């Protein structure tokens, strides 16, 4: 792209963009500044962030740390929530499909690991955790396709209601099926593999940090994949569907197929988080998959800023972390949490970090290319 030749019009555009920037607030001006930094600086910044994230449970930063519950396990929960939010963001934020039954896929993932991995389950195969994860991903993806196939012809509220039903159906199936352990659940789910030199397991209840690090690593891999999709024909098709489904179809986008893909990919990520959850708990029962989790998942996406990866991760962390941080308030903590949500939505209705409008971002990139050339 070598479009820039720095005329007066170009400068005017830049000024207008600057104005736009100020209106859009701090999130975007930070973004602009970030992209204006030279590439090595950005890489170093990211690297530092990654290192800090990995070290969090060891540093136990004074204000952030949770005095009333184990910081490592709070971090793991937050990471899990973030992973779920990334998956749900594909469905809600990118393709614009309101899914209120996302916990269903999470449950399918967790139960897959439980059924195939636990020696106490009806199958009793007792596969190791690493074998169960691909099965879990495949089965939840399949669940996504089975749910999406007939229902993705519905739009908006109708789809939301059907997915809401799906989440409950999955849970009730688990409650009522003896093969799935009924209300008592399934015990003896395998942990992820690995031994320390001294012979103890790396992943055990005694060492939650390892689970956190695993979840964090999975998040990075998934974010990498989702970003690739976002910046491709697939991501553009999703956005186009979200913006105007009919126009997208008339511009040659096979809308149904791409909606189904969004559902399947979202479901796969949900299933993956479910399998992490099962691997950490070692025991699951239907109470882990209540409707309220679906609602909290959607809340994480909307609160953070649907469509923006960093936003939804932030939203998820906030939602998983705040109630734990304020555990000291005992029964008031949920109240405080709810209040915090309402306040955020009043002041930032588009989310904490709103969906990109890539205008400035792209403009900066264009200049970079022009300079580099």
């Amino acid at each position, binding site marked *: 792209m070598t479009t820039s030749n720095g005329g007066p019009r170009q400068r005017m555009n830049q000024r207008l963009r600057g104005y736009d920037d100020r209106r859009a607030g701090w999130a975007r001006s930070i973004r602009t500044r970030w992209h204006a930094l030279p590439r090595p600086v950005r890489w170093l910044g990211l690297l530092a962030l990654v290192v800090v994230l990995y070290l969090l449970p060891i540093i136990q930063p004074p204000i952030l740390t949770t005095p009333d519950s184990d910081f490592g396990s709070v971090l793991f929960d937050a990471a899990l929530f973030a992973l779920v939010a990334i998956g749900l963001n594909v469905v809600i934020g990118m393709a614009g499909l309101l899914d209120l039954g996302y916990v269903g896929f999470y449950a399918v993932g967790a139960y897959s690991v439980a059924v195939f991995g636990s020696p106490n389950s009806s199958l009793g195969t007792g596969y190791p955790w690493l074998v169960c994860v691909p099965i879990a991903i495949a089965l939840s993806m399949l669940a996504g396709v089975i749910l999406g196939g007939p229902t993705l012809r519905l739009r908006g509220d109708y789809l939301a209601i059907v997915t809401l039903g799906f989440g409950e159906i999955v849970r009730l199936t688990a409650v009522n099926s003896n093969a799935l352990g009924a209300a008592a659940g399934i015990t003896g789910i395998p942990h992820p593999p690995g031994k320390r030199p001294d012979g103890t397991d790396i992943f055990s209840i005694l060492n939650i940090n390892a689970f956190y690090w695993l979840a964090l690593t999975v998040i990075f891999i998934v974010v990498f994949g989702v970003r*690739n999709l976002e910046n491709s024909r697939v991501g553009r098709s999703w956005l186009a569907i979200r913006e105007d489904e009919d126009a997208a179809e008339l511009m040659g986008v096979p809308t149904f197929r791409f909606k189904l893909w969004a559902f399947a990919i979202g479901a796969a990520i949900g299933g993956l988080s479910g399998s992490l959850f099962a691997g950490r708990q070692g025991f699951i029962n239907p109470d882990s998959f209540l409707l309220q989790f679906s609602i909290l998942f959607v809340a994480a996406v909307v609160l953070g800023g649907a469509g923006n990866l960093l936003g939804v991760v932030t939203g998820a962390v906030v939602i998983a972390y705040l109630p734990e941080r304020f555990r000291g308030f005992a029964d008031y903590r949920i109240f405080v949490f709810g209040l915090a949500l309402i306040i955020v939505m009043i002041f930032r209705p588009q989310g904490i970090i709103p969906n990109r409008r890539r205008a400035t971002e792209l403009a900066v990139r264009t200049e970079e290319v022009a300079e580099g050339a």
Partner: protein
Amino acid sequence: MPEHYAADNEPADSEPGTDEPTPDIGPDPGTPVGTDLAKALLELDDVTLRFGGVTALDGVSLNINEGEILGLIGPNGAGKTTCFNVMTGVYQPTSGDVRFRGVRLGRRQRFQITRLGIARTFQNIRLFPEMTALENVMVGADARHNTSVVGALLRLPRHRREEREGRDRALELLRFVGIERRADEAARNLPYGDQRRLEIARAMATGPQLLCLDEPAAGFNPSEKSALMDLIRKIRDQGYTVLLIEHDMRLVMGVTDRIVVLEFGRKIAEGLPEDIRTNPAVIAAYLGVPDDAA
């Protein structure tokens, strides 16, 4: 235009023997283009469309010939946009056939029809508002792409090639319609006229042979209109066939090679602009007939 798109325009799925001469770009504006002489790109054959008791199209037959600019005019509610919607697969005709390059559109889905080579713009602009102008056009260009989800996930070579091609083509088209400096702005922030142009660029990006413009000059002032006329001619000179719905008579008469007039879902006239201008049926349709003459 990259060769890739030219190659894609060959009818791969239809029978190969359509023995057309090497496509000279656009008909000579001096020669009248009759249905018998030129090759029909799109044919509507006795198309009727009913919604319940309302007959929106009543036995309409018309041909759009390769390389021409065909104007479709008629009073409000005459069925012009409905006609568009039948051609682009939004509605299935109740009876009759729509054939594109001799192939029946049948029950093809809308996105398939677009990929076949018919693209359109909308009477009331329907861009993807939060996406940038460039991304809007790239969505159109993606109609010619086949990157799979896995390919995009792993950034396989085809994905990279198609991304690059799509971006280049999109930029080229933005330049062609004259809004390349807006490439990085969200579509909804574009001025009205540029949004119209962006719609045209997006439709052209799908690599159509037939470009259907639904009132592209609506809300334009005279100077914008004449700029648009230039653009439409330029598009035709690129080898596109253009179907134009338009209310502005000066624009229609100025730019089209041939005109079809609809009224109450029926075709009431067809011919060269100068003939249409003096056709009594058309004048009656537009101005009404005095009671004593009826």
